[in-house]
C-alpha cells in the first residue's frame, strides 16, 4: 500500500504527514500527530466523540480519510483555547459540571462551537437537535444544554 503525502493546516499550524490511503483523519490525528483530544467512541459516525471542523464544516473525523485533508483547514479541541484563556464554552462546561466522565466532552465542545457560529442565539430545542450527533451517557444532557445556553449569552455579550 502506497502512502499518501498530505499537507494541511491543523489549528492554524502547517502540518505535513504521510498516511495510508484507508487511514481515517481520526487515526492520523491520534496515532500520527499525537492529537488525542478527538476520541473514537464508535468509528462509524454515530457518537460524535471524534468531531472536528474541516473548512468550517462540522464532521466526524472517523468518516474522513486522512488523505482528504490535503489543503484543508482542520480545527480540533486542542486549538479551542487561546493560550491560557479557555473558550467560553469550555469555561461554561466546567462551571455547569456539564461533564462527568468527560470522554464525549471534546466532541460536544467542537459541535457546540460550530452550532453557535451558525446560530448565536439557539433555542433549547435548536441546541438539542444541533447536538443530537453527540452521544453522552453520563449527564442526561441537562447540564450540557444549560452550559451551551450560558456560553451563548456570554459570547453575545463579548
Amino acid at each position, binding site marked *: 500500500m502506497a502512502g499518501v503525502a498530505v499537507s494541511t493546516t491543523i489549528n492554524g499550524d502547517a502540518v505535513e504527514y504521510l498516511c495510508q490511503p484507508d487511514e481515517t483523519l481520526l487515526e492520523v490525528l491520534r496515532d500520527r500527530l499525537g*492529537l488525542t483530544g478527538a476520541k473514537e467512541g464508535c468509528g*462509524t459516525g454515530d457518537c460524535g466523540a471524534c468531531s472536528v471542523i474541516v473548512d468550517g464544516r462540522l464532521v466526524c473525523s472517523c468518516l474522513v480519510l486522512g488523505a482528504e485533508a490535503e489543503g484543508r483547514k482542520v480545527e480540533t479541541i486542542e486549538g479551542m483555547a487561546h493560550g491560557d484563556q479557555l473558550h467560553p464554552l469550555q469555561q461554561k462546561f466546567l462551571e455547569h459540571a456539564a461533564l462527568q466522565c468527560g*470522554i464525549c466532552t471534546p466532541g460536544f465542545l467542537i459541535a457546540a462551537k460550530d452550532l453557535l457560529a451558525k446560530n448565536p442565539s439557539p433555542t433549547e430545542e435548536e441546541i*438539542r437537535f444541533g447536538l443530537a450527533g453527540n452521544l453522552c451517557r453520563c449527564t*442526561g444532557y441537562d447540564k450540557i444544554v444549560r452550559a451551551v445556553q450560558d456560553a451563548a449569552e456570554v459570547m453575545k455579550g463579548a
Partner: protein
Amino acid sequence: MNFDPRFSGRQFASVGTRPIRPDGVDKVTGRARYGADFNMAGQLVGRILRSPHAHAVIKSIDTSKAEKLAGVKAVITAKDLPDLTDGDAAMYDILDNCMARKKALYDGHAVAAVAAIDARIARQALKLIEVEYEVLPHVTDVDEAAHHHAPLINDQVFTEGLEEKPAKPSNVTKRTQFGHGDVHAGFAKADFIVERSFKTEQTHQGYIEPHACVASVNPDGTADLWVCTQGHFVYRQHCAQLLGMEASKLRVTSSEIGGGFGGKTHVWAEPVALALSRKAGRPVKLVMTRDEVFRASGPTSATSIDVKIGASKDGTITAAEATLRYSCGPYAGSWAEIGAMTAFACYKLENVKTVGYEVLVNRPKTAAYRAPSAPMAAFAVESAVDELAHELGMDAVDFRIKNAAQEGTRASYGPVYGPIGIGPTLEAVKHHPHMKAPLKANQGRGMACGFWFNFGGQTCTDLNIGMDGSVSLAVGTVDVGGSRASLSLVAAEELGIDYSHVKAIVADTSSLGYNDMTDGSRGTFSSSMATISAARNAIKILRERAAQTWDIPVEDVHWEKGHAIAKGEKYGNLSPLSLKEIAAASGKTGGPIAGHSELVADGAGVSFATHICDVEVDPETGSTRVIRYTVVQDAGKAVHPTYVEGQYQGGAAQGIGWALNEEYIYGKDGRLQNAGFLDYRIPVCSDLPMIDTQILEIPNPNHPYGVRGVGETSIVPPLAAIANAVSNAVGVRMTHIPMSPPRILAALDAEREG
C-alpha cells in the same frame, strides 16, 4: 484503627458547595488521557478473533499462517492462558470468557488473538487463523433457555438451591428465595389481586469509551498495565491470578475512564493483552471496537418476571409474590438473586415471597449495570402496584405512602430497616408541582419508586501536606463522575483550608494499598470516609508539631478552621499557627506531614428514589416522547450537589433509554443484529427534556458527614415510571420493556380490536 464513622451533625464550610472539578481543565482541552490515549515506545497492536457462532465446539485452531505473516509478533489461543484459577469458579469463568477453551459460548466469544506492528497487519492476521467449529444448537431467550427441552449450555450445571440435587443438568444454575410471612394466607385476605407477567430485554451500559489498555510485560516478569477500569486494584488481582504473576510485580495505572456503569468491573481483554505482550516481548495496545464492546463485553440481564400483589379495600397490601428469571450469559451469576432481594424493598409487607432463577443463555457474560437487577424488578412490581392502586380507586402516590417501608419495617429481603428515605421521597413527590401540572391529549403521567443497597468496602487514602501548606490527596477509588472534586472538598472541610489548596489524584496500584473498585455507589461514600480519617491523622501530627513549637502538651492544642490553637488561659499570648505555618516549619519539627488511612467503609445505608414522568404517545405510530421528568432522591449529604444532580440525571436518562428503545436484538442464527450505536439506540440530546432534581438529605448515621451513595438508585424507577406514564396515556398496560413503537402500536391495535 480508631476511626469513628458516626454521623456528627456538624456545620459545613466546604462540603455542599459547588466548585470546579480538579480534572476539569484537562477534560475540556482534550488533554485528559483515557484508555486509548496512552502509547509506549515499540508498542504493537493487539486484536482478538471472535466466534461468529452462538454455540460451537472449538475442534481445532491453526495459527501457523498468521504466525508467518510479516509483521506479526505473537499469536495466542487459550493454550497461552492456561487455567491457574485453582478451583475458583468465578475466576475460571472470567478466564474462559477472556479466551474460550473448549467451546465458543456466544457470538463474539474470543477464540484467539494477535499482536502485530500495525492494525492492518493485525486484521489480516486474524483472517489467516483457521478455526474449525462444530456448531451446536443455541438458545438466547431467557424463558426458552429455562425450559427443560432447551439446548444445554453447560452439562455440568445442576440447579443449586433446590431441596434435592436434580438428576439432570439444566441451564438454570440457581434458585434463591427471600421473604417472610405466609403469602397464601395474605392473598386469602385480599379484596383485590393483580397478577401479571413482564419481560425486559437485555441492555448495555453504553459507555462511550470502548475498553482499552496498553500492557507491557518485561523479561523479568514485572509488568505495567495502563487501562480504563472502574477498579485497577481488582484488575491487578484478576490479571495477576490469570497470568500467574505476583500482584506486586504488576503495576496497574487507571486511565481516565470514559464511563463504566458496572461494565468495567472485571477484566475482558486485559489478560489477553498481557499474554500477547509476554509472548511478543513488546508492549501491546489493545482497544475494542464498538462492535466488540456490544458483542463481547458485559451487558445486563434479560428478564422474565411474574408478579402477584393483593390488597384489602382499605389499601393495605396483604401479600406480594414474584418469580424472577434473569439471564446470566453462559456463566453462572447472581443476578436474579439481587432482583429477588430488591423487588419489594420499598414496601412494608407482612407476607412476601420472591424466588429468583439464574438462567444460562448463549449471550455475552452478564456484568453489573448500575444498581444491577433492580430496575427490572422495580418495573414489574411498580407496574403491578400502580395497577392495584387503580383497581382500589386510590391515588398511586397515596397507595404507596400507605404501604411504604419505614424505620423498623422488616425489609422484603430480610433485615429490619434503620432510618430510610422512601417515605420522604414519596411525600416530596406528592407535594411537587410536577404532580399537579395539567396534561394534554395523548399525554400521561406516571411515577414509581426505586431501591438500591449501596456498599462501602476496602479503601485506602494518602494525604500529603507540602511545605507550602498545599495538600495532595491520593485515592485508590477510580473517579467516574467527579469524585476527585468531592474528596477535595472533604479534605478541605476536615483540615479547615480552602478547596483550592487541595489536589486529588487517583494513585496507581504500586503507590497505595488495596482499594475496592468504584461500584455499588461506593466511590464518594467510602473514599470520603477514608479521606476524613486520613485528614484526622494528619491533624494529629499538625497538633503535635504545634505543641512542639510552643513547647506545651499536645492535649492543649486544638484544631480549628485550619489552625492549631492553644487552649487555656495560660496560653493567651500564643497566636494560632496556620496549617501553612506548621507545614513550612515541618523540615525542622520532624519531617514531612502526612495522614494515611486504610479502612473498610461499611454501613453505606440503603437508598431510595421516587421519579415522576410525563410522556406523550402518538397513537398512530406508537412513538413516545418524554416531555417532563423529575427525580427525587435521598443523598444522605450531598458533598458536591452539582455532581449529585448529575448522577440523578444520568441514571434517569439511562433508564429512559432502557424503557423506550434500548435492547439487544438477536437473529435466529444467534448473532447480535444491532452491535452499534446506530441501532442500539441510547437517548440523544433531542430525545430528552431537562431532568429536574430534588435532593433530600437524610443523614446516613454511619458516615461522619451523613453521606450515602447516590450513583445507582436513579436508574431503578424510570422503567416503571415511564411504563406507568405510557399506560396512563394510552389506557393499555405495557408489560414488555423496551416499549418500542412497534410494541406500543401492537398493544394499541390489540386493544382497539378488543
